[in-house]
């Protein structure tokens, strides 16, 4: 039997190398063991290692798998990547796009512009094949490793069994040289939608199944199309898919996505001749192209009941799954990583109680519900489930040609925006007459400073941000707390609009994941300490 995945890889990134632990009869112990070196596992690992918490990542493969898979990465993902030191290669390689065009049959219904707000370092979206994201994250991992950061990745290490007791988790791992055992304080299961760990632990993953098949064909071609997202409802094709999408990726690759319906012959549909027939009809006559990657997928909208099972934490697709419409899969997975890493780091360092890990579920399950709601609504619009829903859908598309109000109802996927953790137990006081978008629980919006951008200055630890006032008196705390006071020249109009509103001054307590914990016009050290305690789930004194 072959151990570990041996399917074709786009990039070999972590070839199997035997390690001494495999030969040691005594299991080696790790602080954090991450299962899965996809974007979520890698991001969580990088974040922990940058904070100095040792982490080992295991993957059953040796690199980034074939196929583009996720291709739309949102601003928030780029911001997280910046914090992890991997943002620049994503920006350099990714295709920036802002324009979308919606068609119904032969008619263009309307165009939209994402109109990204100015004063952000990152664009609203880039398109980039997922293997590139994984490669850039592993490149960053190698840099950290070379600098002596406590991070290691092992390819073709397949976890075959998992068990846990009060103080550790035990993993059985198989390799080309045979099995070995490892233990860990905590395990992060980032092993994808089919999560073998979730299956091994017998945990349910229930939700709504959408009875529809989608054909992805990524083609390489020199095409004159602009860098826009083109979406068709009922495209005028004899092969009659219900919807179609055309979207650009780097390297002259274009994503074409056809909605095929439920009763199809998968094998027949995947025959290259059949796929070419569809594409030939779709593209302008005579267009030359190569098929790069094809796949038929179905999807469900579902999540686990609990993202935390004692010492095992689930993240990304392993914990929740949505339809691809809206780019809420990989992007929300990166937000899981962003949320989990700092909490685990503080708990492992003894700075925060174990209860802080429960808030990972509280915050990210609520975010998953929000993503599932958006994704389900988009899917219902794309695939009307009854005669009357089709009548209304078509009425919206007809009206949208002439009437702007109906364009707001056209839903080919509401594009991923980060969740605000309203109602989170970690949120502290909102004692500022400030903008709603920076209330406690919000992800900090970027803003230009005199030179550079705000998010780059926030870093990855708790930060007390003083705007329009002198440096505040900081409380004495065990938890690392940075103080950042903006100079008057840094108070650009965008920064004022996003963080002050009508207020003349403000103090923000910002979490390591760059979400707002609390804010005040002014606060005494003991008030700040209370907010810091709340933000780290400390018991009330």
């Amino acid at each position, binding site marked *: 039997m072959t151990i570990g995945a041996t399917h074709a890889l786009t990039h070999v990134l972590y070839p199997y190398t035997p390690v001494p632990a495999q030969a040691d009869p005594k299991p080696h112990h790790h602080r954090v063991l991450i299962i899965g070196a996809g974007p979520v596992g890698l991001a969580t690992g990088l974040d922990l290692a940058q904070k100095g918490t040792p982490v080992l990542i295991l993957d059953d493969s040796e690199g980034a798998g074939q196929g583009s898979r996720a291709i739309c990465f949102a601003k928030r993902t780029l911001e997280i990547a910046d914090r992890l030191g991997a943002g620049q290669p994503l920006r350099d390689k990714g295709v920036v796009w802002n324009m979308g065009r919606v068609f119904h049959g032969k008619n263009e219904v309307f165009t939209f512009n994402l109109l990204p707000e100015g004063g952000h370092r990152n664009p609203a979206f880039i398109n980039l094949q997922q293997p590139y994201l994984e490669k850039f994250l592993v490149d960053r991992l190698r840099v950290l490793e070379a600098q002596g950061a406590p991070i290691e990745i092992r390819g073709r290490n397949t976890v075959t069994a998992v068990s846990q007791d009060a103080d550790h988790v035990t993993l059985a791992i198989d390799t080309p040289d045979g099995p070995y055992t490892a233990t860990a304080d905590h395990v992060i299961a980032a092993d994808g939608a089919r999560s073998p760990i979730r299956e091994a632990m017998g945990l349910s993953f229930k939700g709504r199944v959408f009875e529809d098949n989608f054909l992805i064909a990524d083609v390489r071609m020199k095409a004159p199309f602009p860098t826009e997202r083109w979406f068709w409802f009922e495209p005028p094709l004899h092969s009659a898919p219900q919807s179609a999408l055309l979207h650009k990726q780097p390297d002259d690759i274009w994503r074409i996505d056809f909605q095929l319906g439920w009763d199809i012959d998968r094998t027949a549909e995947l025959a290259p001749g059949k796929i070419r027939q569809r594409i030939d009809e779709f593209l302008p006559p005579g267009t030359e192209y190569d098929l790069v990657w094809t796949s038929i997928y179905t999807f469900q909208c579902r999540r686990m009941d609990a993202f935390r099972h004692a010492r095992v934490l689930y993240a990304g697709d392993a914990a929740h799954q949505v339809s691809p419409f809206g780019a809420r899969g990989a992007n929300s997975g990166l937000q899981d990583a962003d949320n989990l890493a700092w909490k685990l780091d503080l708990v492992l360092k003894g700075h925060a109680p174990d209860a802080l890990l429960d808030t990972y579920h509280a915050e990210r399950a609520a975010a998953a519900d929000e993503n599932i709601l958006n994704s389900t609504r988009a899917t219902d619009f794309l695939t009307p489930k009854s005669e009357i829903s089709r*009548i209304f859908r078509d*009425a919206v598309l*007809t*009206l949208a040609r002439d009437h702007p*109000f109906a364009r707001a109802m056209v839903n080919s996927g509401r594009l991923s925006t980060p969740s605000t953790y309203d109602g989170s137990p970690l949120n502290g006081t909102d004692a500022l007459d400030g903008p709603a978008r920076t209330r406690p629980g919000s992800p900090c919006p970027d803003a230009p400073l005199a030179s550079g951008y705000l998010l780059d200055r926030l870093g990855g630890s708790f930060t007390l941000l003083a705007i329009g006032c002198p440096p505040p008196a900081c409380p004495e705390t065990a938890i690392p707390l940075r103080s950042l006071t903006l100079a008057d020249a840094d108070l650009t109009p965008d920064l004022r609009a996003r963080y002050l509103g009508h207020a003349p001054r403000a103090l923000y307590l910002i979490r390591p994941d760059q979400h707002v914990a609390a804010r005040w016009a002014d606060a005494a050290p003991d008030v700040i300490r209370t907010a810091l305690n709340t933000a780290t789930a400390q018991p009330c004194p």
Partner: protein
Amino acid sequence: MPLTTAPNIPDPDGFYDELLAAHAGLTKDQSDALNARLILILANQIGDRATLSQALAAARGRA
């Protein structure tokens, strides 16, 4: 803005007539489509979400 259920159209017979006239000569499918467009246009005119919810509840009636 609570849902107005008291008479509010100055010329109810004339409006009713015009509503039916708009459907004249249409097939069932075309009429269904027209009704859907009309509902969406009127809903946008109302705008207020609470009022729309009350209207939906009133339309569902006691059934």
